[in-house]
């Protein structure tokens, strides 16, 4: 796959994205606008990540990745369905290494998020509350022996969103997600031990090592997000978002991860 961000500098990439958006806007401005409440968007951004996984290293690793994202939204007068997918992968973008202050760096890392929220409008207000189902996979490779590490969190929880309309074209929406139950998969031991490898080779062990856990039982996660929607035409919306996430998992050893992301999405309404 072409490594998009290797071909372009960040500035060149931003200018090309802007050109694309302007083209998108120009095309979308013509033709008959049909009222519809389904939209989808494509976006990009930057994700600042810091983590410390004691089962692999006592060092904190920090850096950034460039996620590509896709989202789809369907809203009625009473409900809001939202699907978001984002991926940071060296096979798509350049491999920006996460580094420690001791001058060590990860060989590689990637992160994938898939989120679905089903929200109900509360009493015709601008408040929405509902369920969030999220899957997150964060994989990293250290540059020493057996230095693979990962965590997968598949969670279900509650999501709250408040939609604040500033003007006809501009809305502002802070949201917060608190997962309640998760399926968490971490390395079963400190390295890829024999039993895990045996299960892995026999193709029946990957799920075997995951654990279902309620929140605060060896793990916790919180995500806060603020999004700003700016309608640039009847069909096109530009969405800028900023968010922060924090989670820890206490098994087999403590993992703590913090990330901040900002992103921009161009959304098309059908």
């Amino acid at each position, binding site marked *: 796959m072409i490594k998009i961000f290797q071909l372009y500098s960040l500035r060149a990439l931003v200018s090309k994205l802007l050109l694309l958006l302007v083209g998108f806007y120009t095309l979308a401005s013509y033709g008959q606008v049909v009222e519809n409440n389904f939209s989808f968007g494509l976006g990009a951004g930057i994700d600042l990540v810091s983590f410390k996984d004691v089962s692999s290293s006592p*060092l*904190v690793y920090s850096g950034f990745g460039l996620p590509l994202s896709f989202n789809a939204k369907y809203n009625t007068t009473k409900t809001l369905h939202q699907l978001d997918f984002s991926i940071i992968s060296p096979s798509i973008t350049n491999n920006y290494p996460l580094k420690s*202050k001791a001058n060590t760096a990860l060989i590689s890392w990637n992160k994938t998020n898939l989120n679905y929220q089903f929200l109900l409008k509360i009493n015709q207000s601008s408040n929405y509350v509902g369920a969030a189902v999220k899957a997150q996979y964060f994989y990293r490779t250290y540059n020493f022996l057996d230095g693979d590490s990962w965590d997968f969190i598949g969670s279900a929880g509650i999501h709250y969103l408040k939609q*604040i309309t*500033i003007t006809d074209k501009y809305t502002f929406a802070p949201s917060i997600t608190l997962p309640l139950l998760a399926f968490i998969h971490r390395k079963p031991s*400190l390295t890829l*031990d*024999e039993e895990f490898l045996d299960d892995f080779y026999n193709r029946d062990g990957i799920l075997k090592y995951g654990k279902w856990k309620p929140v605060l039982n060896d793990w916790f996660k919180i995500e806060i997000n*603020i999004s700003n929607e700016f309608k640039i035409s009847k069909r096109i919306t530009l969405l800028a978002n900023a968010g922060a996430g924090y989670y820890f998992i206490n098994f087999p050893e403590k993992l*703590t991860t913090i990330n901040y992301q900002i992103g921009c999405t161009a959304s098309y309404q059908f």
Partner: protein
Amino acid sequence: MYSKLSVLIILGIVLNSCLKNDNINSNAAAAADLIESLERYSVSVLRPNVDYTKVSAKYKSDASENIDEEQFFELTQDFLLTFYDPHVSLSSSFDTLRSIDYLNYTKNINSSTVENGYLQNIKQHQSNILSATINDTIGYLYLSDFMGDRAEVESILHRIIDDFSSKSGLIIDLRDNNGGSAYNAQSLLNKLTNEDLPWHTTQNKTKNGFDNVFEWNIGPAGNFQFTKKVIVLTGKYTISAGERFTMGAKILPHVKIIGDTTANTQGSVMGREMYNGWKYTFTFEKCLAADGTNYEGVGIPPDIYYDSKTLDLTSSDVIIERAIVELQ
């Protein structure tokens, strides 16, 4: 809106304080973390000849902030060498420690002497696997390690053993086998037995002891198993998975081991980092033979012993010659 943004910023500052990159320039902190990590993860510290409390206390007291990084490396090296574990290594940007270089071990194989003096029909199957014939009746298999893709290695090893089906004897030369995957060692053992047998057990070191026992077994693979006479050649540089193979050879009645005692570390190896970014490796698995014998720290003795230090292998190989005699 600005109040919400400020909440996000404050939250960010609070969250950031949860992840502190502390102590990266402190010798004392790096030493303390190394001591704790080894105690937590390594079986090397449990060797009967190691008084970990004593050596770690000395290391901790010597690791002051007044010594420079070269001195700290030497100090850490001396500490790690007290385990006599060939799996132990330490690497920094300016120096590297391989424990085996300090164990006063001598290699008991000279590849050119073997190839020029004893082998015919040499086939290099991949960089670490070579097969040949000694004569019309004896096959020869050399493995420099047990690394490589499991399915690929299994296919190669099984094909080689099948090709030796007409031979009356087989020499498996592991004298400088550097270890690798126990599964690849198992693939070869499976071609040497016609019955299911317990091979060895492994247990990972955990915070409070060890996890569950994992039982390794061997059993016949494919249509043909080589159950005629087999000689396994071992030495001080037969390490890790090479030693586990030797454990398997010990339980097979048609297999005899000739050479020197193996290196002394059979469990799997793990890598970690110190606070200062140096990397180190150590053994994290307790590995017991099928009869419960623990060879960690001592190595697996051969059936016929040759002291590596006394051998002159420049023009002849007394170990191979003894193997040929045993197979005739």
